[in-house]
């Protein structure tokens, strides 16, 4: 792996430029600010790309062409949609609980951005490399339940409330197998730090050591991001649009932005924990050198987008679960399975240590 990459170069350049001007402490703060700005740009760019990608994937899987009017190959479709949403009337329905209703979409965005603080985009390119990185991610991402409930309750609409309640039930239920599936990886690494987890996959990606955990993670992550087949929260056939029913214009767009931010976040975590993060494909010999020639951020982006495609593939293939099926599957299948995975991993680690005489 190269010691120098584009993020480190930018960081070093900014530091050399700002250091003499501001002193060490202020420079550190400015650097965090730059990281935050980078993350926000990353989220917005991705949301724009992903809305188009989702529509294209949906269309292709349904034998259609999808957006093809605005720009070449429909590339500017999302830009046009965003402009439309921006200029729409900011409509507030009568009798909504104004503060709760208005804060819902804004607050939903906070955990979505916060989760990006610990994602390792490249070698040493983590906005904040916490020693409890994955724990922080889990903690912050479970906060997104609350804004959904706020939106559902504040809308003063029975469908919204049902959606909000479903969101709480679903997200809390699937949080448990999600976290349990990550524990297997954490046991193998022995650290919660994201950079350490990526480094540990230098020889073999954890998807090969923890296949069951990976499958559980993908299922639970689909439920966490409220995507089909677990999109009971929106579920337009039953409850219109769930908590989003009473929102329009930019407020509604905030929900979408947060949804896609969450999608990228869970895909990035899957990349980091199971697919080797920014590490290249571990191939032997010259092929491995060739793989290492591709920069880390490109590997990271490629793997993340593969995961995103997988989630979109699920969405446009599977029909929606019923609520009781969803709950039964979460509690009766995924949680026991993830617990068994932890047990097997523990026994495996013990046997391995016995074998190497450690």
């Amino acid at each position, binding site marked *: 792996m190269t010691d120098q990459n584009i993020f480190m170069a930018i960081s070093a350049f900014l530091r050399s430029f700002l250091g003499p001007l501001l002193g060490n402490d202020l420079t550190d703060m400015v650097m965090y600010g730059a990281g935050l700005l980078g993350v926000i740009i990353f989220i917005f760019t991705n949301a724009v790309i992903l809305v188009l990608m989702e529509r294209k*994937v949906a*269309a*292709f*899987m*349904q*034998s*259609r*062409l999808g957006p*093809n009017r605005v720009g070449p190959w429909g590339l500017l479709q999302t830009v046009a949609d965003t402009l439309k949403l921006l200029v729409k009337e900011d409509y507030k329905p009568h009798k909504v609980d104004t503060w709760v209703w208005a804060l819902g979409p804004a607050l939903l965005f906070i955990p979505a951005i916060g989760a990006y603080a610990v994602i390792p985009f490249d070698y040493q390119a983590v906005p904040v490399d916490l020693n409890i990185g994955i724990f922080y991610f889990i903690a912050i991402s479970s906060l997104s339940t609350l804004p959904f409930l706020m939106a559902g309750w504040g809308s003063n609409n029975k469908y919204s409330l049902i959606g909000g309640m479903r969101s709480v039930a679903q997200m809390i239920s699937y949080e448990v197998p999600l976290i349990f599936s990550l524990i297997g990886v954490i046991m193998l690494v022995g650290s919660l730090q994201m950079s350490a987890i990526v480094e540990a996959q230098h020889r073999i990606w954890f998807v090969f050591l923890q296949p069951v955990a990976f499958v559980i993670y993908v299922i639970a992550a689909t439920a966490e991001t409220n995507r089909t087949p677990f999109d009971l929260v929106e579920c337009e056939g039953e409850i219109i649009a769930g908590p989003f029913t009473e929102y329009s214009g930019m407020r509604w767009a905030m929900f979408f932005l947060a949804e896609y931010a969450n999608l990228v976040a869970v895909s990035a975590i899957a990349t980091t924990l199971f697919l080797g993060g920014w590490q290249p494909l571990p191939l032997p010999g010259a092929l491995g050198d060739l793989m290492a020639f591709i920069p880390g951020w490109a590997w990271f982006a490629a793997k993340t987008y593969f995961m995103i495609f997988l989630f979109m*593939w*699920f969405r*446009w*293939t*599977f029909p929606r679960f019923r609520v009781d099926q969803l709950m039964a599957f979460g509690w009766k299948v995924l949680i026991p399975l993830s617990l068994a995975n932890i047990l097997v991993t523990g026994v495996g680690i013990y046997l391995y240590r016995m074998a190497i005489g450690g």
Partner: protein
Amino acid sequence: MQGKGLLTGMWVTLKEFFRKKVTEEYPDVMPDLGDRFRGGTLKLKTSKCISCGICQNACPNGSIKLTSVRDENNKRKLSTYVHDAGLCLFCNLCIDACPVKCIDWTGEFAFSGYSREDLVFDCIDLAQKRGYDPVEVKEPPADGEKG
């Protein structure tokens, strides 16, 4: 095995993902409506037409009006041939009835107009303009007998 159906479904959608799309990009690409499509105006081969008037008689709506003149050999010669697409129900009876197969559909489907007159087509004129049958001199509609 539990969950096998999920994989089957994903395989189906993946194949669909890479398959040729069925969307017709209509205004940019004209759709191929096939040989049996009936529509548009009548494509008339004036040199082949014997002015027998069977098409006019076969038409249930009276949308075809043709007149002819006798030439020096006392042979009928087409002088006017008008197809009123506004009255036409595209039943194909005229084309089936024609003994020399000199009429056919142009096959277009987007020829709407702002008035009823826009739907009345002079087929001899059209044939010359579009070059279905370049060798034809249109004669004035004299006091020729009807067909």
